[in-house]
């Protein structure tokens, strides 16, 4: 019985990250307002960042800043730094995409006067 509990405790984080990703993805696909889609996009990206960070986490590991000590570094004491580097890039990428998407939304609003997708599609048809 405890193996199932232990299995769940070991993985509930990943399942919640998946739930978060799906919220973002669903918002991005089904929302009618373009700004809402942009928010959904950002949630989707941050959820993936969360997934990467949790790959690097070690129980009992502290932040990866070393002191100038004599003896060799005990690896399991420190959290895995590589996902952190990757996710610094991913955060910057998500902010840049966020900025560009907002700029496009403003251009659309300047032209169509609305940010609701169905209204825009209607006046694009004529």
């Amino acid at each position, binding site marked *: 019985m405890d193996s199932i509990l232990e299995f769940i405790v070991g993985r509930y984080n990943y399942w919640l990250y998946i739930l978060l990703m799906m919220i973002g993805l669903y918002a991005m696909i089904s929302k009618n307002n373009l700004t809402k889609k942009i928010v959904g996009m950002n949630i989707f990206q941050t959820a993936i960042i969360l997934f990467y960070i949790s*790959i690097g986490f070690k129980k009992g590991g502290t932040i990866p800043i070393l002191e100038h000590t004599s003896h060799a570094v005990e690896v399991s004491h420190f959290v895995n730094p590589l996902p952190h580097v990757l996710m610094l890039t991913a955060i910057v990428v998500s902010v840049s995409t966020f900025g560009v998407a907002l700029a496009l939304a403003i251009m659309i609003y300047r032209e169509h006067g609305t940010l609701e997708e169905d209204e825009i599609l209607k006046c694009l048809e004529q």
Partner: protein
Amino acid sequence: MRYLYLLLVVLSASVLFYATLDFPQWGDPNSPASLHVSPVYLQRSLEDTSVPNVVTSVLADYRGYDTMFETTVIFTAGLACFVLLRVFAPKMKDTYYRHIQSGVVLHIKGQTTLLDGSRDFERIDSRWVPADIILKTISRFLIPFIQLFALYVVAHGHHSPGGGFQGGVILGASIILLSISFDLRTGLEKIHERGLGLFSATGVFIYTGIGALCLILGKEFLNYGVLSKILPVDPVMARSLGIFGVEVGVAITVMAVMVSIYNYVSSEGRLDEGL
């Protein structure tokens, strides 16, 4: 249509869930990810680059190439906002001048240049809302400290969490605070659009320039060890100085880009009065 989307989302969720069955335990120290490459970073970071913060050393040295492209991404975002939103054509627009002592507002139609001479007129925006005096004084008081903290974050990236990006953003945020609390025009007076453009280009130029410098000195691209040929330090210190130089480049670009994106987004490219 909504159910189709829901179906798609549930389908991808199930594939994701199917994958997690084979995942290592959450936070288990000897998961494959933390046994293959990351121990090398942890062990060799100190003696290679004498930078205690392993994240910064991996960020700027081992995988410095990624960070260069990351800075290019943020530079591209600034570029995109400039190209998409910036409107150069000066629209003939009404201007408003307020007589400071009496509070009388002059409304001049279609004339864009500033009313010359007298100091007792101040230009105000069409949807003029008197900036709250409390907000103005507090922000005027706070901004220097924020900038100081930002520079600390950039400089102290080696030893404590922080570095180019965080410092640059905070620096940018201080200038954005100025533009919000006063108005965009005062923000533009402090750092004009031309300065922002040049700063964003020079920041990324510094980063790529250091890499190209290593190339010219014979070693691979972004291999800071070779900087010891021109700097009076041993290769390990040269690496740490290289990392610092790169961080400064990143900070400059990020600051300039964040401010310019704010300027374009908040004024729809007209750079007149912001929020």
